[in-house]
């Protein structure tokens, strides 16, 4: 179950697996993206389920692969929100790197954050949007 998180100035919590899918709304030349922040334990659970292997048999590459696919699926749901019914071009998932964070910082505003909690663990989904399209009041 995911819940909407009210906007705040707090930094997002650190997650070992941060993945990002770029979005583009061609009609408005608008860019954004969906980030998914997954903690190590959740990444292992996801990967063991998807690959159908035991926890000890999961490799680092498998964790990244599984989390990228999770990001892909969540992005599909969020893209509708981003496009408001217009056709959205969805990119391929990639591990969020320095260049992505730079892009978020310089060109993006956080449109929405959703979180799923299990005990102390949190999985966050973040919708980034272009700064040129401020959050509607």
């Amino acid at each position, binding site marked *: 179950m995911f819940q909407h998180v009210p906007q705040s100035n707090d930094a997002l919590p650190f997650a070992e697996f941060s993945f990002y899918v770029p979005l583009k709304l061609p009609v408005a030349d608008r860019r954004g993206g969906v980030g998914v922040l997954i903690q190590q334990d959740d990444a292992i659970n996801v990967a063991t389920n998807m690959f159908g292997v035991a926890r000890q048999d999961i490799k680092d590459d498998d964790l990244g692969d*599984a989390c990228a696919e999770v990001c*892909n*699926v969540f992005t599909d749901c969020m893209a509708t929100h981003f496009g408001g019914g217009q*056709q959205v071009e969805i990119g391929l998932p990639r591990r969020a790197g320095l260049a992505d964070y730079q892009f978020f910082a310089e060109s993006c505003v956080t449109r929405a954050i959703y979180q799923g909690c299990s005990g102390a663990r949190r999985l966050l989904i973040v919708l980034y949007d272009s700064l040129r399209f401020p959050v509607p009041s």
Partner: protein
Amino acid sequence: MSATPILLSKPLKFLVVDDSRAIQAIIRRSILRCGYEPVEVRTALDGEQALDIIETFVPDLVITDWHMPKVSGLEMVQALRQMGHANIRVGFVTTEKTPAMLDQAISNGAMFILHKPFNDAELAAAVVSSVKDLAKPVLTQPAVEESKDVEPVMESSLHKQLQATLGKIPFRLIAREPMTTDKLTPNNLLGLYVGTGHKGVYAIGVMDGNAVCMVGGGASRKLPPEVRAAMESGQPDESMLNNANVFLRAVALCMAETAVPGPITVSLAKASIVKNTFAKLSEVLAQSGRRSDFRIAIPGYGEGRMAFFLMAA
């Protein structure tokens, strides 16, 4: 899905194309869950790699993602068709939902489009539905069981009949996609067939409203906007309806070919428009065997469905 393995006389071959190894693993698991033995499953990380593999390994079914680096799933399938692999069956497992894109997949012969996230059972069901006619068991089924699986209209026969009706209009015929009540259009054309030596109705044919407009309109050489308008309004014009009737009559020849024991003469006794709420129609569509289901896609027109059912003697 299948507790006891279905032993095949030759291996069923699958190619799984996805840039996620995790999804590859899930799809492989679903294929194995179908219970066919032996099967060969190969994997590719993108469309380009898939096309390379197909040069030496011709699969019975390709299950592919849509969005991948280098060559997308749709581009790969289009290339496959251009290379002359018209018979390789394809199913998509994707997050893509854009109707225009999905139409392109259907036009290129996609047998199923499954949206992520999906569960193993859903995919296994789609796989079985796509390859069940290719899966020839080692052991011969008892005669009674065989008769239950008789298909009243063979895909190849119907294909020929459609070619004769549509002339040079390109179309794609996809077999074994069950017509169900929820897929019916508000108005549908119902044909009743009689056969020599059979009491009562020998078979029933159903064309949904879209198929009537497409096949009837194609036979009249109608332009795509005219056909689409008729499909949207659910009102085929007189020439569409007449030609759809002629087509149903011609399908009787296909039925005569498959009659067991044959040969017999099959003819169309009556055809009429019925509402999707017609109770008898639901009964017929619920029939589990002795049926042939088809989806037809015509670029520019759209897609429609038709199905043929043998009635109990």
